[in-house]
């Protein structure tokens, strides 16, 4: 390490999002020279726990991997088990699964938009977007009984039906999002100060996105048309024509910066509305479970043998679960992968040569599920004098930069 750089560890205790993670920055003046990631502060061995439980119990465990993607993990897990055991899902259940997952995408993307605005210092936008998000949370509560951890998924279908009486409320909420879409676009995509802070910041090039195997809006914002709903459609997505959204469809160009990630997410909210609308217009009749008796289902699963992969496009990117069943009550192998796992490496090129004040928005831009930084320690390598920056001070730096640019 040359004497002209500072070491800045950020984390492990939570900065702007829920979970802990450490970033070790090498800073020269205001610019980041290199970054080293050290996750693992919250590794609970959930896959190991799963190997000691039966398949039905794991659905609920999988649901609790993430509080925001609480439809995505059980969706992927159920698909993996259905693949391994050769269980078919009734069409109506496929449609309900997609409706719930897309409602989740709306709430996750708007939640993210609020967090991003907060990191930039626009707290009024945070309140506005979370107010908008509340509508979909209410709808999810009405449909599933819970705002998070919906408990909708079951091997071979879903646990709750969507009734005729609930359809008008879904339509009302969809109309609300159609009406509010223009406002979201104005606030996030046409606002000059958001553009100033996010354009050409945290750039991930097309090649880097491919090489680092990044997923979800992070990779799509860099121009890689990768979306499992498009590439390998499953459930009801196979009937609806889903197109992977890249920023050039809005702005005509792909820069791979934070602004492009905002574009992709805002457009995806509208895409989700269209998918849900298609699903409720074409909702097929019939059963919602291939086997309603859980004890009988467990009996089938106990005799099943084989391997299966379940994939689902979660709000943050591809979720993939691998399951190996071996004629026993517990699965022999259960491997779950969340999108942030793959997007981890993308932070390195994104943060390269950025300013310290841009750290919060760049880190938030991939919508991480393992967040970081409650405090920041600046260590002067010449004097070894420690200076601790709290999260508030770091956020203040970020806000000051916004104000400076607006002047």
């Amino acid at each position: 390490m040359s004497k002209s750089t500072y070491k800045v560890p950020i984390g492990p205790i939570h900065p702007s999002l829920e979970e802990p993670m450490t970033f070790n920055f090498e800073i020269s003046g205001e610019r980041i020279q290199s970054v080293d990631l050290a996750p693992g502060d919250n590794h609970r061995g959930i896959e190991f726990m799963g190997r000691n439980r039966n398949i039905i119990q794991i659905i609920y465990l999988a649901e609790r991997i993430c509080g925001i993607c609480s439809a995505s993990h059980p969706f992927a897990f159920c698909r993996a088990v259905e693949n391994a055991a050769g269980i078919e899902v009734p069409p109506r259940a496929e449609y309900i699964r997609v409706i719930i997952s897309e409602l989740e995408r709306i709430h996750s993307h708007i939640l993210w938009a609020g967090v991003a605005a907060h990191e930039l210092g626009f707290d009024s936008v945070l309140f506005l977007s979370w107010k908008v998000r509340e509508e979909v949370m209410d709808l999810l509560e009405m449909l599933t009984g819970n705002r998070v951890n919906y408990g909708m998924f079951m091997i071979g279908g879903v646990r709750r039906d969507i009734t005729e009486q609930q359809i008008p409320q879904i339509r009302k909420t969809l109309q609300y999002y159609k009406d509010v879409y223009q406002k979201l676009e104005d606030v996030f995509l046409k606002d000059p100060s958001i553009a100033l802070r996010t354009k050409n910041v945290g750039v991930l090039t097309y090649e880097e996105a491919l090489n680092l195997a990044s997923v979800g809006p992070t990779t799509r914002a860099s121009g890689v048309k990768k979306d499992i709903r498009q590439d390998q459609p499953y459930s009801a997505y196979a009937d609806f024509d889903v197109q992977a959204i890249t920023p050039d469809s809005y702005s005509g160009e792909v820069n791979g910066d934070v602004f492009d990630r905002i574009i992709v997410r805002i457009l995806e909210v509208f895409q989700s509305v269209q998918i849900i609308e298609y699903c409720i217009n074409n909702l097929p009749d019939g059963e919602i479970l291939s086997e309603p008796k859980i004890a009988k289902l467990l009996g089938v699963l106990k005799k099943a043998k084989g391997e299966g992969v379940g994939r689902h496009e979660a709000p943050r990117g591809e979720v993939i679960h691998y399951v190996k069943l071996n004629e026993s009550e517990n699965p022999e192998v259960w491997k779950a992968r969340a999108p942030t796992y793959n997007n981890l490496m993308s932070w390195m090129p994104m943060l390269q040569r950025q300013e310290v004040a841009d750290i919060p928005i760049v880190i938030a831009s991939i919508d991480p599920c393992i967040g970081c930084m409650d405090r920041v320690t600046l260590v002067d390598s010449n004097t070894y004098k420690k200076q601790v920056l709290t999260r508030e001070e770091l956020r203040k730096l970020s806000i000051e930069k916004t104000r400076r640019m607006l002047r």
Partner: protein
Amino acid sequence: MEYYNAQELLSFLEENLKENILGIRLESRKAGIKQEEFHNIWLEVKREKFRDTVKLLMSLQYPHIAIISGHDTGETIELVYLFSLFYGEKFKEISINIKVRLERKNPAIESITDLIPGAQTTEREIKEMLGVEFIGLPDMRNIFLPYDFPKNVFPFRKDQKGLDELVPKES
């Protein structure tokens, strides 16, 4: 770039790998009311040929690696590499799951991080959790376990019953 359908890809792999294939299976599933098909290829190759298999995939399209799943069966360590190819267009993507078996006594396999840098996180995870040596992996530090975690303890191995002391004494 030329898109292969699942059957073509299967023949392509069989032609190029020949006797190095220990098992290959094409699995087709249907989705939606329109019953459109999508495909999984399950492939098992000899350990020595694994790297060549990845290079073979790279000659078609830059493969996306999702994760490596590792499993200690008691006698061997099974790694399943979950790849996907031909993404970018509707219904074209094919999942390729490549299985490699390693000796449990001295599990080692060549790293693919020089071909696909994005594989680094998952290789590091398998290294620390199952004790598989990835030859040529640039960053050998632990990723999810603490840096001072005992070197000979691998939490996801079958015979692992936990650490004697949770907090190692300072030496």
